[in-house]
């Protein structure tokens, strides 16, 4: 099983653990991640304004790269996944955007949304299978109580992301069960961490992160996992509660359970 892999900027800098453990775990599970060449920053936010074209080009280049390899494009960072998946949907469904992007890029053949964008978690669920993952676990995280924090970008808008039930997702909980731990379900697992507003006003993410973590702790979680570097940052750096749980990327626990850490 080989995927074209798009790591994204943050995974090369602040979120190296997210990337490193994803790679070793994939290898152990028989999945090859072939990093695409010359990828550029996805832009981190999906441009909602319909007349934004230039900000969508780098995502299309990545998509076209995977198309040329004849592979699915695998993403890991929630923001990259969100942007690339939605831009791909635009290329598939919006005639105006598709025409303008292709006019601009002048590719050998027009890109019209052919590439399938897959998140690492979707790969675990649909290609590897959580049952097979469970069987591959060498070091089950027995006794660990883990709250999944989904954030916004993987789930919404559900019609485009088609990732999971946006209000009652199960994929991370199923992942937690597969690595031998106990999932703790929280109400705020799909409520925003405060996002990029952190750059301007830390008070907003602080309020959000405290609320999210307090709930996780009150429901007995010792660990909170995420797939998003910005969520991890807000929860870890911008929260001020005392009894903070461990906050880490899901790939760290995956590697730990597979005996690779």
């Amino acid at each position, binding site marked *: 099983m080989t995927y074209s892999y798009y790591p994204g900027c943050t995974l090369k800098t602040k979120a190296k653990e997210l990337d490193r453990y994803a790679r070793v775990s994939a290898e152990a599970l028989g999945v090859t991640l072939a990093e695409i060449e010359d990828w550029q920053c996805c832009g981190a936010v999906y441009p909602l304004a319909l007349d934004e074209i230039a900000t969508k080009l780098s995502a299309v280049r990545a998509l076209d790269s995977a198309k040329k390899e004849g592979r699915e494009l695998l993403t890991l960072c929630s923001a990259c996944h969100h942007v690339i998946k939605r831009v791909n949907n635009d290329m598939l469904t919006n005639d105006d955007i598709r025409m303008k992007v292709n006019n601009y890029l002048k590719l050998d053949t027009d890109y019209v949304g052919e590439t399938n964008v897959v998140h690492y978690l979707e790969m675990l669920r649909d290609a590897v299978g959580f049952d097979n993952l469970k069987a591959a676990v060498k070091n089950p995280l027995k006794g660990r109580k883990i709250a999944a924090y989904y954030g*916004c970008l993987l789930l919404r808008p559900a019609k485009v992301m088609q990732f999971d039930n*946006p209000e009652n997702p199960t994929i991370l909980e199923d992942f937690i069960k597969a690595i031998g731990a106990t999932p703790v379900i929280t109400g705020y697992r799909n*409520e*925003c961490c405060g996002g990029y*507003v952190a750059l301007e006003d830390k008070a907003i993410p602080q309020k959000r992160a405290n609320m999210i973590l307090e709930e996780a702790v009150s429901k007995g979680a010792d660990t909170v996992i995420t797939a998003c570097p*910005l969520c991890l*940052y807000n929860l870890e750096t911008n929260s001020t509660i005392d009894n903070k749980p461990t906050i880490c990327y899901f790939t760290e626990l995956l590697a730990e359970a597979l005996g690779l850490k």
Partner: protein
Amino acid sequence: MTVNEKELAERVIRISGVNTKKCMKCGKCSGTCPSFEEMEYHPHQFVSMVEKGQIKKLMESKSIWTCLSCFACIERCPRSVEPAKLIEAVRVCVIRQQGENHLKANAVPEKLDENMPQQAIVSAFRKYSK
């Protein structure tokens, strides 16, 4: 509504793709918004104010900088009005003006801390500047 405001309202409608007339004024967007307290005008008010052409008030409001782009109002809107798209369009109308970048490049270094991921910086730049 001045000529200029009418043109602005049309631009907001055009680049957001929102049909404000579909709104049934249920308020679910504002009931769901995680940034409600930080906003001067709330998501449901964006819908009615854009419809009335009161774009300048919205352009001057801090609401456009405190929307978290979490898409909760988009996901939960029962009428597919999706107010966050209006907020984005108003924000874009502001930053596309000469010299109106909300976030200036030279102001960034002082805002950084050692843990802040690139994702946050790029996101904020894309949202706040042109």
